[in-house]
């Protein structure tokens, strides 16, 4: 019908309908795939952390900033002038107190007893205020009053550069261009653009090790379990009667449907030095030990087993379905030709599973590349970083910091590498799949 194209309106209407139907998917892709990737790339080029904030910083004179101004920029005098805390009971402050509702008696007493006096800290001023006969009652009133006499900008956060320099000028400090630049560098609390995340990444000794760990993790799990063992399971169950085969497959699905925390806890119970393995092995003369964390080899065996038992089930289902779709006549024919089981597997089943195997290899390698949750729960990357993979390193950097300073920028840089590797692998896989031939119109339509 559509190929006839009776008029342009039908085509145009169907196009709009098509776009409308695609719109939710498009929004989904943009929000949950494209935006995170773009944000990761942006974050990766910054020094963003909890301390710098995500949405932007402020301009703030602090002790540490002024120390840096003196040491790195040689502006000792400027640093001293700015770092000086000063509270002065002057006319401006007293008038402000009057305007803001302080009693006449208090205003008068401030004028009479404290006018002209300066204090090196707010506490000292407040101590003086508290000695007044008409002192403000309550902490809030005291704080409100003392704030009116602040004549320094130490620790005050200014939202914009202009406000900040206005405040500096208000202190009677004139700045030249060099001083302005130095002051901006040492007072800005927010993030800045930087390429240092990548130079840091490539200079660290542990990066290479984390990279190698990732390769071990992805390929060992992939080859041994996600495709290899899945293949064995699907072929074995193919030759089993339907009912036991179904039960067998259901059992192998259990790890996938178990909550990860409980699933890993079971493995830990198995491996702890007071766990199941030790209980069995100690009477046989083995020393009690934490079998999972005993050494890197053990840790890797457990990591591959934990992930593999989960990952094998998906391959098993895909391969089983693919084997079922092989015409039974092929099996009959092979048996007539005298093929044994192994020859059936080798010459009938495996050739038909070429694409499912490729699909599982591609899908699971990308999936393993970014997965770390079972490692986090099981070994936390230990012992001694031996099982720390790239995704776990990115997570720990960006979302786990002992002193509350999460390193979003560096963590994003690590994650960006994963994104890039993922994209490159995806393109390679598309080529391997010969994607164009897969999406070519069926010959019948041509």
């Amino acid at each position, binding site marked *: 019908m559509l190929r006839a194209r009776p008029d342009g309106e039908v085509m145009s209407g169907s196009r709009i309908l098509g776009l409308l139907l695609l719109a939710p998917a498009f929004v989904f892709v943009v929000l949950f795939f494209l935006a995170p990737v773009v944000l990761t790339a942006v974050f990766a080029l910054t020094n963003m952390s*909890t301390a710098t904030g995500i949405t932007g910083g402020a301009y703030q004179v602090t*002790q540490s900033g002024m120390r840096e101004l003196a040491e790195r920029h040689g502006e000792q005098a400027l640093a001293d002038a700015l770092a000086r805390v000063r509270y002065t009971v002057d006319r401006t402050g007293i008038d402000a107190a009057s305007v*803001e509702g302080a009693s006449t008696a208090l205003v008068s007493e401030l004028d009479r007893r404290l006018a002209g006096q300066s204090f090196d800290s707010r506490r000292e001023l407040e101590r003086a205020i508290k000695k007044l006969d008409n002192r403000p009652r309550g*902490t809030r*009133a005291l704080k409100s009053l003392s704030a009116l006499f602040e004549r320094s900008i130490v620790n005050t956060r200014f939202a914009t550069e202009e406000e900040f320099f206005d405040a500096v000028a208000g202190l009677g400090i004139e700045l030249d261009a060099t001083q302005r630049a130095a002051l901006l560098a040492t007072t800005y609390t927010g993030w800045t653009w930087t390429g240092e995340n990548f130079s840091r990444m490539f*200079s660290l000794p542990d990066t290479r090790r984390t990279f190698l760990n990732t390769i071990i993790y992805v390929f060992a799990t992939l080859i041994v379990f996600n495709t290899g063992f899945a293949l064995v399971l699907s072929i074995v169950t193919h030759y089993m009667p339907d009912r036991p085969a179904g039960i067998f497959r259901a059992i192998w699905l259990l790890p996938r449907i178990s909550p990860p925390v409980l699933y890993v806890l079971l493995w830990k119970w198995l491996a*702890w*030095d007071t766990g199941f393995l030790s209980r069995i092995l100690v009477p046989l003369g083995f020393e009690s030990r*934490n079998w999972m*964390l005993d050494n890197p080899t053990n840790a890797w065996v457990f990591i591959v087993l934990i992930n593999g038992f989960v990952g094998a089930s998906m391959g098993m289902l895909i391969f089983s379905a693919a084997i079922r779709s092989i015409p039974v006549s092929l099996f009959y024919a092979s048996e007539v030709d005298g093929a044994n089981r192994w020859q059936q597997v080798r010459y009938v089943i495996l050739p038909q599973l070429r694409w499912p195997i490729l699909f599982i290899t591609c899908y699971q390698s990308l999936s393993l590349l970014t997965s770390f949750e079972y490692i986090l729960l099981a070994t936390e990357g230990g012992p001694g970083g031996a099982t720390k993979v790239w995704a776990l390193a990115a997570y720990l950097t960006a979302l786990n910091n002992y002193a509350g300073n999460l390193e979003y920028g560096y963590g994003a840089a690590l994650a960006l590498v994963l994104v890039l590797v993922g994209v490159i692998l995806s393109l390679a896989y598309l080529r391997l799949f010969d994607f164009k031939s897969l999406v070519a119109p069926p010959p019948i339509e041509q």
Partner: protein
Amino acid sequence: MTLPKRVCTAAAGLAMGATAAFAADYTITVWSGGSGPNDHYRIDAISMAAEFLEHEAAIRGDELNITIEGKPYDGWEEFKQGVTLSAESGTAPNIVVTSHTDIAPWAQAGLIVAAEDYVDLDSWPLNDLYGNLIDIASFNGIVYGIPQDAESRPFFFWKDHMRGIGYSDADIEALPGKVEAGEYTLQNVLEDARKIQDAGLVEAGYGFYPRVSNGPDYWQFYLSFGGTIEEDGKLVFDKSAMSDFYQFFVDAVEAGVTRKNHIGTPWDQWYGEVASGKAGLWHGGTWHYARYTGREGLDDFFGNIQFTLIPAGGDGGRANTITHPLMYLITDQGDEDLEALAAELVTIASEPRINTLHAIKSAHLGIARSQSSVPLYADDRWASEATDRLLPHATAQPNNVNFGQYVGIMWSGLEAAWTGQKTVADAIADAETELRATLGDNIVIR
């Protein structure tokens, strides 16, 4: 002249001090990190404070209704992610109870406000707080937090095992003094741990049974070997002290008194073992007292366990202990009224009688001098002895924006050396490379 921005909002408080009766409803959210079942008073104290404030307001003729919504977190990771990310999205809780080491990054980011802007540190009960705790609550010369508790991290000895290798009761009683004087060092720890194992009193690997995960405790061993964590506002990596500290744990493993795979031992297992005499010497925290005598069922703590400072590593080092007080921090809500109310609640929660409930229930130490006069505190042998023996020697980790990264690097190096993944020299060299790449001029390496 132009008044600082915060004066404009603070002025409302000055006027309010003079206003007539008012009615107001508030909801204050409190999140506490690292809070187990014994730590519920961290939030309950704020609820009590709210009740007091409501009564006081009623006496003044005001109607004040405060709803406290508390959320305790068992661990730290989820808590810190929750606080920082909720603050970024503008939904931070009003009050957080957290480590003092979070102050630096969170203050720089503007997530928290300076407590000293809202409370009167010269008035009761805050003028009764220990001065060193106020110092620990400060960053860049500004008091950001109000101490919620104090603690200390002692070294423990199982008395029977010490008797088993020839210590008399008098010798055991003299241990705290010998440790403090530097006469009993970490080398003696290894020797005694070995003797205890050789005598068959504990199993192999249980002679010295350290903490099973990263934590402030490990800095104590760096200090024991003469290390300095921060000097003049800059972090310090003392290669020699760090190397000696790593070597101590490697020596412990090589001597067979500590297990190579000890890190990652489940906490529940660890607590059960140290509280039942399965370990010879170990280190922990003052709050362990509550766990040992509570859940672990140790009836006679003082009859079974001796506690001291962490012994010196040798010449140049010193016996020490680290206190890691938690703080009440007030988050920036962009609403002076809410922040002032939160500060009032925290102030009341710091009153000695209320804080003592937490101190004794959770076996932490008091925050104020007068707590020793509160019967519940004064009558508690652990609180008074631990306060006397440990707190005078307690130091704290620094409030430094970059400290979290330093902690991560220190721990990675220790873990790698301990588990045999790297030699001590390689671990130190890699840590140095990483510190230079990560912190640059912000750390002094010597």
